[in-house]
């Protein structure tokens, strides 16, 4: 069956060496999918491949049946929005920054934003809660607020597919939960398809509908969190001893780590 986002035998990489080799998976419309895997397993490269920053060496990436790599830059920006880990927007206000999300819709020589642009920006600033920060400079915001503004900007692009690169890294749990709740709402309420790189396995298990586990430039396992987050796969991919249990309230998988000295004195169950 053709999925909404379809990646088939896709390889890409940097000059001289392959990083991503023969990756295939599909995502249904409105799914919130987490990409997990250790550093260097090709998560960010996969993002660059999907967003066509890196050209395909083999295979295709399609979105709703259309090849993303064959779209024009403008078309692509109307369909795929990316929120990067760091948002270096410097001295522009939050509102100016979010308005940049409307750039893919500007006519060739359109100089100013139109009413529709303002309305859309207003809507997504409210939705993400950054409307009260509208006149603040981006570089005066905290990391969490910057991520929220980044998400608002990406939503203003009105994309079919939203790519998030570790939106919760460097944030405290308040902001982690705030942002992930927001993303989850977006995928449910707006039927937005979301692909997110995330390092924290517990957050990945708790929030995502589907997980893609990557290893050495390939996909090791895909499926619902309960299937993907088992100790055998995690230990094989991360080369670390873990224990998995179930969250008594949400019923989602939880991953525990064990320190070296505990491990030497206790027997693993």
């Amino acid at each position, binding site marked *: 069956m053709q999925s909404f986002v379809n990646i088939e035998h896709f390889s890409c990489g940097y000059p001289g060496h392959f990083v991503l080799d023969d990756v295939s998976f599909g995502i249904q419309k409105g799914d919130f999918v987490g990409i997990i895997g250790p550093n260097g397993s090709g998560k960010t490269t996969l993002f660059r491949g999907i*967003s066509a920053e890196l050209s395909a060496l083999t295979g295709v990436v399609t979105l709703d049946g259309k090849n993303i790599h064959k779209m024009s*830059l403008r*078309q692509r920006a109307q369909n795929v929005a990316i929120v*990067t880990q760091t948002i270096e927007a410097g*001295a*522009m206000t939050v*509102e100016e920054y979010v308005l940049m999300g409307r*750039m893919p819709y500007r006519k060739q020589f359109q100089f100013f*934003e139109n009413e529709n642009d303002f309305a859309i920006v207003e809507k997504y600033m409210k939705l993400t809660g950054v409307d009260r920060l509208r006149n603040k*400079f981006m570089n005066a915001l905290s990391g969490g607020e910057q991520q929220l503004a980044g998400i608002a900007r990406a939503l203003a692009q009105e994309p079919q597919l939203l790519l998030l690169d570790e939106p919760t890294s460097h944030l405290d749990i308040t902001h982690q939960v705030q942002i992930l709740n927001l993303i989850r709402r977006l995928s449910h309420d707006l039927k937005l398809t979301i692909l997110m790189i995330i390092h924290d396995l517990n957050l990945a298990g708790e929030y995502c509908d589907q997980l893609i586990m990557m290893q050495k430039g390939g996909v090791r396992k895909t499926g619902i969190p309960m299937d993907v987050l088992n100790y055998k796969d995690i230990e094989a991919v991360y080369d670390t001893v873990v224990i998995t249990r179930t969250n008594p309230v949400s019923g989602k998988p939880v991953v525990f780590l064990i320190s070296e000295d505990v491990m030497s004195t206790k027997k693993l169950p």
Partner: protein
Amino acid sequence: MAGIRTKYWKWIVFLAALLLLLAISVAISLSSGEIDIPISRLPQILSQPDSMEFTILTRIRIPRLILAIAVGGALSLSGAILQGIYRNPLVEPYTLGISGGAALGIAIAIVFGLNSLSFLTLPVFGFLGAIITLFLVYFLSIKRAGLSINSMLLIGVMVSFISSSAMMFLMSISTTDNLQSIVFWVMGALDESNSMLIRIAMYSSLAGLIITYFFAQPLNALRLGNAKAKHLGINTDVTVRLLFFVASLLTGIAVSVAGVIGFVGLVIPHLVRLLIGNDYRILLGGSFLGGAIFLVLSDTIARTIIAPNELPIGVITGFAGGLVFIVVLSRSRSHVKLN
């Protein structure tokens, strides 16, 4: 929404203020000189084609004024463009070695005695020097991976060192007469008398302004960085290359008619940024007008302060620009805003 609307109103007021300031500077510049012409009499004189003052205005002061506006606007505009595509607030036309190349071209023409051939020799050699340097910088910095902005900057600085060494070599082997004309040229002056060159300078700097305005939004997107601008659907490669050429041509033309006038491209865009923000839709026009005002006033000072002699205009722009810049930067904590 209110924030952005107020911003547009501020832009209009800002542009109006700059235009007014330019008008005042023009009036001051036209009235001052060896023969003082009161500002109040300017309209009257301009309607009397047979008076001596009329000849002074139309033959000497107005051409010079037009050149000041064209060169000031062009240099300041190319500074704003280059800062935008390099995302580096310290870049200006002269950091990229373009003017060094132009100066070298001029020095070669003078040392080999080519300037007696035609009035066009020096401008043409200056322009060639600028363009050759530009191609050098551009092609040396294109790597397999594409256009690397940082290497372009470093190569520009190096090329500028090399050409200034080559120029010093030429100066050390040249005659006293030649040496003096090289030095004078390097210090910059707006006393070009050929009306065709002045017209070329004016039209090309206006054309540069118009072309650049088509890229105001891509320049805004580039404030987020190359990759992120691409994510917003901007063809950054085309934008950066095209704007680099526009900025270089503008600088090449300015340098070839007026010599090396430093600081305009660095200081003026910065002051405009501090006053009105970093949105290129206002920054480009603001920089152009600001550069024009700055050079008109500097030139007026340069030719009156030690009259009947004339100071090289580079001395004035360096002093005035640098001092204003230091004062403004140390008074506001706005240097964080410079990106």
